[in-house]
């Protein structure tokens, strides 16, 4: 059995500025938000605060931290400055609206925001729907129960995963960036790089094995 969703409360270096901002603003806003007694601690907590109590200070902190990166993501994917900004606005409003559905046991804040940005981009730039399974669908095949003692909380996957990505050989890293930042499927990569499809697939598989090993280490 592969490891199923594990809790990720990775400490993101990028989040530190957000924490400071949120801490400062949480003080100002505490009267409006009695549910937030302690200052937010991580991007995940900020997102939970937005979902649970529509906490504006937490949203502003998330915005300062993530909006510039979401813009970089969209720029890498070919959006010009103006349409990237429009879509950043759209993505951040979607974060505000859907924050209630965020489950920190399933994804870190960065992962969740990545999926929101990915889906909004497909919707707006590609003008296609993004088909997704529905976790509450009665026709869904449920995952087998995992014994509670094997569900270990993960503290540093984010850091370890980023290190594993940084250490990939360049010819594998190139393909990973094409997949995530250039909208290229593995068949499109083979065409763009004039490589046989089999070579692209085997390089991606090697990359995938290394990255997935960082998840296996968690358990």
């Amino acid at each position, binding site marked *: *059995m*592969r*490891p199923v*969703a594990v809790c*990720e409360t990775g400490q*993101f270096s990028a989040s530190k500025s957000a924490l400071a901002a949120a801490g400062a603003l949480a003080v100002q806003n505490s009267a409006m938000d009695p549910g937030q007694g302690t200052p937010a601690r991580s991007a995940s907590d900020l997102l939970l605060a937005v979902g649970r109590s529509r906490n*504006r200070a937490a*949203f502003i902190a998330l915005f*300062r931290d*993530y*909006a*510039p*990166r*979401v*813009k*970089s*993501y969209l720029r*890498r994917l070919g959006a010009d400055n103006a349409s*990237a*900004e429009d879509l950043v*606005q759209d993505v951040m*409003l*979607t974060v505000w609206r*859907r924050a*209630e*559905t965020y489950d920190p046991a*399933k994804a*870190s804040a*960065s992962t*969740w*925001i*990545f*999926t929101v*940005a*990915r*889906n909004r981009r*497909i919707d707006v730039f590609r003008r296609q*729907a*993004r*088909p*997704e*399974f*529905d976790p509450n*669908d009665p*026709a*869904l*095949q449920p*995952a087998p129960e995992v014994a509670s003692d094997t569900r270990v909380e993960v503290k540093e996957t*984010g850091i370890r*995963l*980023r290190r594993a*990505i940084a250490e990939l050989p360049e010819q594998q890293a190139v393909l990973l960036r094409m*997949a*995530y930042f250039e909208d290229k*499927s*593995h068949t499109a990569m083979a065409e763009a790089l004039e490589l046989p499809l089999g070579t692209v697939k085997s390089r*991606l*598989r090697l990359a*995938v094995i290394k990255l997935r090993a960082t*998840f296996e280490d968690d358990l």
Partner: protein
Amino acid sequence: MPVHHPGEVLLLDYAAGNQDEPVSLLVATHLALCPDCRATVEQFERVGGAMIEELEASPLEAELLERVLGELDGADPEPGPTRPTAGGGDAWIPRPLRDYLSSTLDDLDWRNWPGFKEHRLLPEDPGYTTRILSVGPAKALPRHDHEGPEYSLVLSGGFSDAGKHFLAGDVEVAEPPSDHQPVADPDGDCICLTVTSGPLRLTGPLLRVLNPVLKI
């Protein structure tokens, strides 16, 4: 649980968001039936999260935050992603495929062929042929090949092809050149979602002449 999976590379494509709608529809419907592949896609989404973290911050227009904050009050909570709802698929067919069907299978607009029938989905997508196929017991599809990969997801029943057997939830990936001929199990109809990229060519000795006419 499914035995034949789309493969990690295709799951990576799906998680990264770079596959077209027909292929994504097939992958996502497989995910509804396959907890293992769901876990894999979650991992690839974590890779996406990590890659976003690593991007340099782009400067934003000064007033963007104010503009977003100005819209927060009008933005009501939204319980989940909005879905296309043709709204009539059978309850046993998993989402997202169910949402693409305008009626139950019995009432779909089928095109009949000897031994099987087909219903086209996403006909406006030029790069793909997306179909629900219903193949009669022990019937064979015409022998064929395609210029791009063909993905078949079994919804009910089963079929055999190229020495392998596929049951509900399984995905067959037929990369070109892959001159093949799926045969349905003898114990009932086999219902599949099939996505073919690039044109399809019939390769049986008699059928070859029909290629220009049939356009299956």
